[in-house]
């Protein structure tokens, strides 16, 4: 039985994996298909997307028409279980001095973690992104380059299924021919934006998202992913065949019971479980990595959330993929070896250099989009197009007052009406009755939301340590976050809002508010974009990094990091695809080292 209760773990596993999201899911997939016996610990409850996903539930069936609440910040039908910026009984603290620098930590306590609800935007980091310091003198270079990750990006795209196009734009890598699934057609609002953006020099292209716009090629892909391993190919073939193509309805954030998009629970865990090599313990709140006297990791100590009991499980290697900051929390709390600064921390850098993605937004109302005849714009459940960062050369020439770029995500409003008044007061101007209903029909679909997602440069003032006083309900010291934006992030979001206003005005629309002059006014709080990475960064010097180029802890050679914690930079590209690619790469290395007897 692969789902086992705490206390029923085998005596020892090849690998103990903490976390079941993107990084943990990929690790379990890669390792079990290579024949390694793995135990996965998930802090939240088990979750079955096939039977639990509210795909076609109507808003009228939910409390308050499914409106957002603090308990369900993304609306009632969002897939997230026991999650949000607040998890009951598991606080965190912030040592911020200004409100715009108060870090907000989003967590999900469920099998599959955040992958059940995420945006599915799957962008490759480009060559510049891994060598930022070389390019502009700021931040930290990774020890690896794009060429090291490229084969894994391709494998991940083939496994999870990513739609999109190859445009050959600067630092926006193409995928090899035939890897991407067909892009979905542009929506009216997207085509309109594309047309007007062109005149402003902003390229609007098909986005890459992990949604199956057609059935995966389950006949041919498994052999490409697992050459020479017919047993793995057979398992992956069956898992791929079981996933359906998108049927062009419902929001991806609800999760997908037919497996038409990527979530760990529909893509990674089914084949991993089918190998017979994976046990999963849910409600297992990891507290620390256990270190033997020889300095090697021996396993993980966790608390069974249902009983409060302490459990120890053994593994020949340990992978932390708990969700970047959770991984830091575990490292800093791992003091059984007698090291008061935690495990893998001889550099003193565990917790340092945390980055989120920058975010700012603006809404426009576009008269040209008013009173259109009804048509279905549901599409693939989220955006079909976006603007990659396009001003690399201007930046290089010193024409901008910030060093790193952002991409633009945007979307219209011809989607399923939720618990939302369709007529803003300033447009309705007091209308009620049939006149109000005419307004509702007139303005429906005429709004457009723009948001930037930008790169933050790691800095000395953005980090986490253990709060000296506050503990969670299990008595475990919690993280305390420290944060400072630099002028690069603040100037970047100001630039983005000006571009949004230009775009909206070019379309003949009006903006909801003037672009901010002060970056603090525009920028979302840290943690709000939910792309926090770093804190156990990769590097080539053990004194200046926590892990090596394989995301293997310098201090503990059988301890690996498979979430975002090793990121030494956080490009504007959403981190999940890179987490998946690096997790696969790390696990290939782990397998190789294990075969050589080096662990």
């Amino acid at each position: 039985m692969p789902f086992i209760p705490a206390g029923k773990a085998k005596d020892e596993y090849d690998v103990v994996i903490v976390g079941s999201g993107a990084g943990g899911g990929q690790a379990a997939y890669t390792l079990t298909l290579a024949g390694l016996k793995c135990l996965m610990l998930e802090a939240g409850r088990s979750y079955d997307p096939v039977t639990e996903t509210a795909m076609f539930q109507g808003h009228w069936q939910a409390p308050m028409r499914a409106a957002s609440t603090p308990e369900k910040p993304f609306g009632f039908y969002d897939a997230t279980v026991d999650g949000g910026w607040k998890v009951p009984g598991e606080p965190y603290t912030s040592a911020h001095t200004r409100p715009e620098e108060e870090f907000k930590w989003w967590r999900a306590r469920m099998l599959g973690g955040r992958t059940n609800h995420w945006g599915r935007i799957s962008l490759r980091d480009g060559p510049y992104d891994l060598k930022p310091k070389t390019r502009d003198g700021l931040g930290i270079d990774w020890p690896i380059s794009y060429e090291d990750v490229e084969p894994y990006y391709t494998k991940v795209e083939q496994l999870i299924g990513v739609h999109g196009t190859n445009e050959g734009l600067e630092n926006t890598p193409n995928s090899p021919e035939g890897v991407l699934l067909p892009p979905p057609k542009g929506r009216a609002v997207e085509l309109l934006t594309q047309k007007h953006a062109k005149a402003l020099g902003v390229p609007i292209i098909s986005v890459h998202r992990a949604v199956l716009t057609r059935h995966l090629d389950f006949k041919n892909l498994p052999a490409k992913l697992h050459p020479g391993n017919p047993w793995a190919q057979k398992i992956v073939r069956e898992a791929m065949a079981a996933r359906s193509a998108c049927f062009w309805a419902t929001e991806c954030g609800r999760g997908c019971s037919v497996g038409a998009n990527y979530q760990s629970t529909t893509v990674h865990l089914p084949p991993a479980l089918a190998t017979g090599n994976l046990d999963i313990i849910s409600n297992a709140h990891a507290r620390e990595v256990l270190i033997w006297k020889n300095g090697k990791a021996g396993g993980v100590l966790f608390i069974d959330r249902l009983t409060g009991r302490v459990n120890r499980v053994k593994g020949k290697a340990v992978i932390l993929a708990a969700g970047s900051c959770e991984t830091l929390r575990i490292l800093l709390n791992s003091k059984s070896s007698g090291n008061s600064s935690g495990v893998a921390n001889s550099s003193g850098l565990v917790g340092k250099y945390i980055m989120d993605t920058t975010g700012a937004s603006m809404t426009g109302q576009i008269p040209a989009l008013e009173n259109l005849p009804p048509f279905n714009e549901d599409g693939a459940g989220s955006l079909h197009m976006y603007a990659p960062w396009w001003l690399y050369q201007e930046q290089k020439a010193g024409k901008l007052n910030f060093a790193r770029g952002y991409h633009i995500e945007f979307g219209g409003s011809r989607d399923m009406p939720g618990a939302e008044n369709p007529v803003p007061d300033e447009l309705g101007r007091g209308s009620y009755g049939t006149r109000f209903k005419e307004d509702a029909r007139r303005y429906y679909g005429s709004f457009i939301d723009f948001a930037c997602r930008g790169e933050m440069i790691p800095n000395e003032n953005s980090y986490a340590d253990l709060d000296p006083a506050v503990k969670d309900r299990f008595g475990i010291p919690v993280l305390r976050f420290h944060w400072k934006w630099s002028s690069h992030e603040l100037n970047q979001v100001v630039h983005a809002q000006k571009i949004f206003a230009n775009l909206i005005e070019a379309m003949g629309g009006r903006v909801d508010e003037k672009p901010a002059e002060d970056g603090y006014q525009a920028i979302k709080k840290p943690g709000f974009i939910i792309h926090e990475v770093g804190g156990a960064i990769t590097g080539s010097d053990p004194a200046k990094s926590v892990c090596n180029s394989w995301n293997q802890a310098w201090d503990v050679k059988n301890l690996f990091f498979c979430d975002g914690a090793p990121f030494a930079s956080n490009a504007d590209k959403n981190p999940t695809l890179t987490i998946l690619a690096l997790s696969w790469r790390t696990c290939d290395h782990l397998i190789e080292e294990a075969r050589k007897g080096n662990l």
Partner: protein
Amino acid sequence: MSKSDNLVQLTVNGNTSRGITRRRAMQWVLAAVAASAVRPARGEDAVVASTQLAPQEGYGSDPLLLKTYKPGDLWPLTLTAPQRTTAIALADVLLPKDEYGPAASELGVVDMLDEWISAPYEVQAADRQPVVSTLEWMETESTKRFAKAFDKLAPEQQYAICDDICFLEAAKPEFRSAADGFRRIRSISAAAYYATPQGWKAIGYVGNVALEKFDGPPEEVLKKLGLTQTVI
């Protein structure tokens, strides 16, 4: 609701509309995150250690999603019978039966309004007092002007009252408070109305149907907007 990654759809003080509320919405969610009480996930009371717990209030962080909920199932509704009568009459003035669809009362709009203002969440609770006062004000005003309850008034009489309070920005000082409540009632009622199959029809939403393929906008729409499909 945005199609963008991670944008939060939020409702603020009954003004659930787009536009100027987004920044306020973000401010609210942050305030609410900070303010909401710590309480145990279900079945875990046994291991709760020293944390002081607030009583169970909302639906929790792991509600059953596949169940159909009715207003009143999760927390008690609080409008009095007279307030409710006025609210139903008002909602039907706001969203009448017409060529676009049924009247608000046929879609349970006031049940949702009652559920909303009775909810144990800060943002919804902030609507309670203005909504209730306005319903009471309408009763008093109806009696004062026409010697009848609001629901018994002729449509023209109902409009006469509504016209004084329908637009906060233009309302006379003596009507500002009622206009604020009216704005909230209209906003919550519209949110309730359009989040129904009949509301979808009324607004022109034709999605949420499984399709073999997605063809993008129809030719008629592209033509009207002067666009061509660029994704082949």
